[in-house]
C-alpha cells in the first residue's frame, strides 16, 4: 500500500513539475550562443548540409531546425506563441500572413531588410522582389520567401504530335485540343476536382484568365473571367473531356493520370516537374508551357504561391534571423534545394546553367517566372478557399447550370467575408 502511494505520489509530482516547466523559449544556450529556432514546413526545404556551413561561418549563432508541416504550422505557431514557446522563424503558406499579422504574432523586419540592401547590395540584388512581397502585409515586411512555386500547364507531347496539334495558347484552343485528344485510351484533360486540397489550381486558372481581386483580397468571381472559368470546368465535365470521377480527384490522381498516359494535359505545379521527368523526357514525351490566356484577353497573368519564412514578434535576435535568411537564400545553398525541389527567389540560381541543366524546362519559363504575381490573400483566406472549392464542385456537379448564376450565388458569400 505504501509503495503504491509512493509511486502515485512520484508520478503526480513529475507530472506537476512537467506542467509547470519553463515556458520561455530559449534564445541563448549555455555557451552564450544566440539560438535561432526554425520550423520548416517540409523536410525538403532544409539545406542538405543542415546548417553546417552556417555554423562554421557564424560560431555565435546556433540554428535549431525542426519540421512542422505547413498544414498545421500556423495553428501550432499561434498556440506556442501564446505560451511563449514559438520558434523565431516559421514557414507557412503565404496566404496566412494576414492572419498572423492581425494576431500581432509577427515582427516587422523592414528595417533589417533595408540594412541588408544598404550593406550587402550584391547579395540583396540577386533576390527577386517577390521574396519580400510574399511575406508582406500592408506594406510591411514580416519575413522572406526563399522559395515560391508557380503552376503551369503540362502536355503529353507525344500525343499532341501524333494528333498534329499545337500547344494551346488560349483556353478555347485547349478545349479544342482536349476534344481531339479525348479517346478511349485517354482523357483530353485532367484536373483536381476534389476537396482534399485548397483551390490552388482553380485560383491559378482564374488569374490566368484575367481574373481580378478586390483590395481586400477577395476574388471577383462574378466577372467575365469568373464566368469563363466556371464554364470551362462545366465544359470539361459536360463533354466528358475529364475523367467522370475527377470531382473526387486529389493532385496525386491528376498527376498519375498525366504520367500514366491517361490524360493529355493538366495544370501542374513546377515542383512536380522533376517527378514527371523521372518517368519521361522533357521536350520529347512531355512538354510544359505557361498557362493559356482567355480568348480576347491579350497577355495573361501568372500567379505564384509561396511558403515564406516568417519572423516571430518575440524573436530576440532579429540580426541573427537575418543571417539565417541570407544563408537560406545564398546562391550555393539555395541552388541545391532549388535543383531538387522548389524554385527560388534567387534570380542568380534561376538563370544558372546548373539549375537549367537540372530542370531543362526552367529556361522556357524564365521570363514568366520573373513577372509572376503573388496570389492575393484575404484575412479570412481559409473561408475564401472553401468557397472557391464549393464553386469548383458546383460547376462540376452542374455542368448545365448558368455560370453567371453560380458566380452570383457564391460572390455573395465571398463578399460577406468583408463584413
Amino acid at each position, binding site marked *: *500500500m505504501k509503495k*503504491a*502511494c509512493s509511486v*502515485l505520489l512520484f*508520478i*503526480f509530482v513529475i507530472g506537476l513539475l512537467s506542467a509547470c516547466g519553463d515556458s520561455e523559449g530559449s534564445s541563448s544556450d549555455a555557451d552564450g550562443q544566440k539560438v535561432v529556432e526554425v520550423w520548416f514546413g517540409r523536410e525538403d526545404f532544409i539545406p542538405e548540409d543542415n546548417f553546417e556551413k552556417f555554423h562554421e561561418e557564424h560560431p555565435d549563432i546556433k540554428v535549431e531546425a525542426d519540421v512542422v508541416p505547413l498544414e*498545421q504550422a*500556423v*495553428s501550432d505557431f*499561434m498556440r506556442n506563441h501564446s505560451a511563449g514557446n514559438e520558434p523565431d522563424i516559421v514557414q507557412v503558406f503565404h496566404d496566412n500572413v*494576414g*492572419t498572423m499579422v*492581425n*494576431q*500581432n504574432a509577427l515582427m516587422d523586419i523592414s528595417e533589417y531588410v533595408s540594412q541588408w540592401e544598404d550593406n550587402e547590395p550584391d547579395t540583396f540584388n540577386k533576390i527577386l522582389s517577390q521574396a519580400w512581397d510574399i511575406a508582406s502585409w500592408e506594406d510591411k515586411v514580416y519575413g522572406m520567401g526563399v522559395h515560391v512555386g508557380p503552376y503551369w500547364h503540362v502536355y503529353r507531347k507525344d500525343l499532341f504530335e501524333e494528333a498534329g496539334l499545337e500547344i494551346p495558347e488560349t483556353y478555347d484552343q485547349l478545349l479544342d485540343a482536349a476534344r481531339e485528344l479525348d479517346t478511349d485510351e485517354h482523357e483530353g484533360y485532367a484536373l483536381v476536382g*476534389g*476537396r*482534399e486540397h485548397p483551390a490552388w489550381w482553380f485560383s491559378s486558372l482564374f488569374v490566368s484568365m484575367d481574373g481580378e481581386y478586390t483590395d481586400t483580397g477577395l476574388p471577383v468571381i462574378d466577372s467575365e473571367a469568373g464566368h469563363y472559368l466556371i464554364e470551362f470546368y462545366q465544359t470539361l465535365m459536360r463533354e466528358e473531356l475529364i*475523367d*467522370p*470521377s*475527377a*470531382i*473526387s480527384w486529389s493532385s496525386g*490522381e491528376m498527376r498519375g493520370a498525366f504520367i500514366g498516359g*491517361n490524360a493529355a494535359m493538366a495544370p501542374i505545379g513546377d515542383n512536380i516537374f522533376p517527378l514527371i521527368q523521372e518517368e519521361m523526357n522533357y521536350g520529347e514525351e512531355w512538354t510544359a508551357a505557361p498557362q493559356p490566356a482567355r480568348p480576347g484577353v491579350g497577355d495573361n497573368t501568372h500567379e505564384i504561391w509561396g511558403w515564406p519564412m516568417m519572423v516571430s514578434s518575440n524573436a530576440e535576435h532579429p540580426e541573427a534571423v537575418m543571417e539565417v535568411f541570407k544563408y537560406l537564400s545564398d546562391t550555393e545553398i539555395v541552388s541545391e534545394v532549388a535543383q531538387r525541389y522548389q524554385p527560388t527567389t534567387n534570380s542568380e540560381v534561376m538563370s544558372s546553367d546548373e539549375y537549367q541543366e537540372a530542370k531543362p524546362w526552367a529556361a522556357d519559363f524564365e521570363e514568366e517566372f520573373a513577372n509572376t504575381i503573388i496570389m492575393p490573400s484575404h*484575412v*479570412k483566406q*481559409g*473561408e475564401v*478557399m*472553401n468557397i472557391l472549392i*464549393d464553386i469548383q*464542385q*458546383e460547376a*462540376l*456537379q452542374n455542368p448545365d447550370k448558368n455560370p453567371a448564376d453560380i458566380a452570383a450565388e457564391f460572390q455573395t458569400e465571398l463578399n460577406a467575408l468583408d463584413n
Partner: protein
Amino acid sequence: MASTQVETKTSLTQKLKNSSLKKKSIPYLLVFPAILFVVGVLGYAIVAGVLMSLYDMQLSFADAPFIGLQNYIYLFTDSTFLNSLFVSLIFVFGSVVLGLTLSLSFALSLYKCKRSGNFFKALSLVPYLISGIATAIMFRFLFSGDVGLINMILSTFGLDTVNFLANPWWALLICILANVWFVCPFATLILLSGIQSVDQELFDSAKIDGAHKHHILLKIILPLIAPMMGISLIWLSFASFNMFDVILPLTNGGPGRATEVMALYMYNVAFDELQYSLGSTVMVIILFFNVLTSLIYLKVFNVNYSE
C-alpha cells in the same frame, strides 16, 4: 484485567476496520491516475470548449468578444452546418444499423467458432487496429472510379462501372461502409462477451424443449445481452458521430458537401478557417448528441451496473 481485554478487543476491531478500509480503498486509489488523466485532458477540453463557444475567437482577429449564444444561433441558421447535421444523422443511423447487424452476426459466428476460436477473435479485431487513414486509402483503392477494384470486377462481368466517390449518395454509402469496417470489431467483442456470459444450460434446456434457432436468438440471446447491446450501440453511435479520420482522406466531405459530417465540418471550421469558437460550438453540439443517444440507449436497453 477485563478493561484491558475490552481495550485489546476494541483496538483489534479498529485495526480490522482500518485494514478493511485500506483494502477497499486500493481499487479507487489505482483508478485515481486514470480519472485524473481523463478529467485533466477531457474535462479541461470540454469546459474550455464550452466557454470558448460563448466567445468570438477567430485566429484572423486579435480580439475575442463575448457573444453569448450567437455561435449556436448562427450554426442553426447556417445551411452548411444544417447540411452537415443532416449528413451526420444519416451517417450515424446507417453506421449503427449496419454496424449492429454485422457485429451481432460476427459475434454469433465467433461464439459458434469452437475450433481456432481465439485465432478468429484476434483476426476480427484487425480492422480496428488499422489506422483510419489506412482504412480510407484502402477504400479509396477499392472504390476509385477508373482503377478501383470494385469497378474492375464490375467490368469483368460486363457490368457498367460506377463513379462511387463522385456520386453524392454512393460516396456517403462508401463512407458508412468504411466507418462500419473500422468500428464494427469492437462492437463485435462487446456483444461476444455478452453471449459468452449466457448460461449454457439455458441453450440446452431450450433445445430439449424443441426451440428453433431463431427462438433461441430472439427469446434467449437478445433479451439477455440487451445491456451489452446498449453498450455496443453507445460505442457505434459515439464513434460514428466523432468519425473524422476515415472521411477526411476518403472524400474530405465531397462531392459537394455530401459527406461532410459534423466532425469534419468542425475540423474545417476550426483548422482551415481558423474560427476556433465556431469549431468549439460544433464540438458542444456533437457532445450533446453523444450524451443524448447514450442516455436513450442506457434507458431503452436497461443498462444498470448495480444489478
